[in-house]
């Protein structure tokens, strides 16, 4: 990373915070209407231990849901990518499932597995985030040019060899593209569970307690903490993408 790559986004963030502060100051909004960045600092200071423990709860449950989504989504994508019949059979089901707002699934899941809060939260994070992965893997595999297969098949390569040497690496850029979408979706899933079905864990619960106590700066502080975690996870995915699919990144020009 060069100085420029760090300086430009940092500067953009500072400008954003300044504009936010200025907007609240010019409009003369009280903090129950719109908290300003300077209100957030005391909120973070006051609840710092809570932010750490609840942030960790949100983080690990999101990552667990995401890992499940990667495993399940990749397997499903492979099945749909290799078999036309399975693709025709599963696509409408998948699309239908994905169209259901997950906020409506939360109470159902909460009733089905009463008291299993960690499991429920991971489940929702998983359910909301596996779809893009399954679709991208299946498209990556089904659009493999036949010449790639022919080159290896004509040498007597097995299907497994063709998958390992060509189909798998060729699908990686699409896979990481989907993973970037799924990372943020998984966060939404975790917080949905934490807020809609409160059980005192995670940043969602902290947000909820801010709401019941009319502690508006706390609510905004939770949002910022969520955004921060989202950025961290996103850039972890970007780093993994650089390692495993960096070849797809072409030099500009």
């Amino acid at each position: 990373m060069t100085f420029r790559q760090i300086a430009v986004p940092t500067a953009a963030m500072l400008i954003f915070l300044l504009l936010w502060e200025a907007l609240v100051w010019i409009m003369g909004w009280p903090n129950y209407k719109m908290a300003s960045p300077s209100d957030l600092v005391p909120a973070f200071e006051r609840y710092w231990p809570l932010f750490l423990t609840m942030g960790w709860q949100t983080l690990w449950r999101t990552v667990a849901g995401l890992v499940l989504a990667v495993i399940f989504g990749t397997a499903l994508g492979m099945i749909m990518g290799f078999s036309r019949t399975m693709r025709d059979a599963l696509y409408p089901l998948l699309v239908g499932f994905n169209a259901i707002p997950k906020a409506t699934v939360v109470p159902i899941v909460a009733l089905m597995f009463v008291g299993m809060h960690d499991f429920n939260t991971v489940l929702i994070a998983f359910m909301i985030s596996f779809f893009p992965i399954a679709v991208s893997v299946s498209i990556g595999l089904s659009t493999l040019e036949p010449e790639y297969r022919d080159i290896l098949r004509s040498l007597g390569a097995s299907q497994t060899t063709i998958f390992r040497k060509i189909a798998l690496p060729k699908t990686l850029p699409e896979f990481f593209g989907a993973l970037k979408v799924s990372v943020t979706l998984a966060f939404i899933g975790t917080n949905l569970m934490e807020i809609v079905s409160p059980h005192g864990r995670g940043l969602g619960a902290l947000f909820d307690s801010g709401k019941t106590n009319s502690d508006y700066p706390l609510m905004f502080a939770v949002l910022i903490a969520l955004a921060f975690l989202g950025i961290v996870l996103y850039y972890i995915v970007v780093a993994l993408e650089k390692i495993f699919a960096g070849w797809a990144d072409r030099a500009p020009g």
Partner: protein
Amino acid sequence: MTHLIEITGVRHAYRTAKGPLPVLDGLDLAVPEGGFTAVVGPSGCGKSTLTKLVAGLLIPDHGEVRLHGSPVTSPRATVGMAFQNPVLLEWRSILKNVLLPLEIVPTDLSKSQQEDRARHLLSLVGLEGFEDKRPSELSGGMRQRASLCRALVHQPEVLILDEPFGALDAFTREDLWQIMHQLKAKEPFTGVLITHDLREAIYLADQVVVLSGRPARTQYTLDLPQQGPRDIAHLYTAEAAEQLAILRHQIEIAQGRTPAAA
């Protein structure tokens, strides 16, 4: 004379939703060892099906495809293929791309010998110094050259070329024609070239086979005995003009635009 590739009376139909679609009907072809046969014909006449038959990727409904006298029933490692699309693996360096067949075909060569061979081939086609580049850093002509090296690295008996120069500009194409002659002189192989370009056919091949429209049969065979690499100037001789005229006439018959009797 024994032939390395012998195709006799091949008929083949693809099964489609609307019933069988015959693509080949009465295809005969014989290529001697070390020969170079160009196959020309109207678009969609089944030329690519022919390459799949020779590679063993497809078994014909009727008739026989023989390599060295034994029928082809499955893919065999003694074939190298290059297509119009160079299909290089973008995540590998050029050198690693060329080495790909040796990872699949059993070989006696040690790792360093394999690498030496790949480097040697790359230098033959003028890609010295590009071994560690990614395919995306190369021009279309260079990618196609790398693809030729990959097709030859395991020393196949048969090199199958399915319109490998079709997508290149005219100058690059002529460049690659000459490289083909150089390769053939240094790395002997028996070649089958599918092409739409009659000039390419008479410049590279020692036998040009014209296929009829679909379902394709062997309509006409033109022998072009040649000694050693041809000069590109050959294409501008009266002899070449005459050969082109014959082939063009045959293509018109194949397209159904001229009656066969004419």
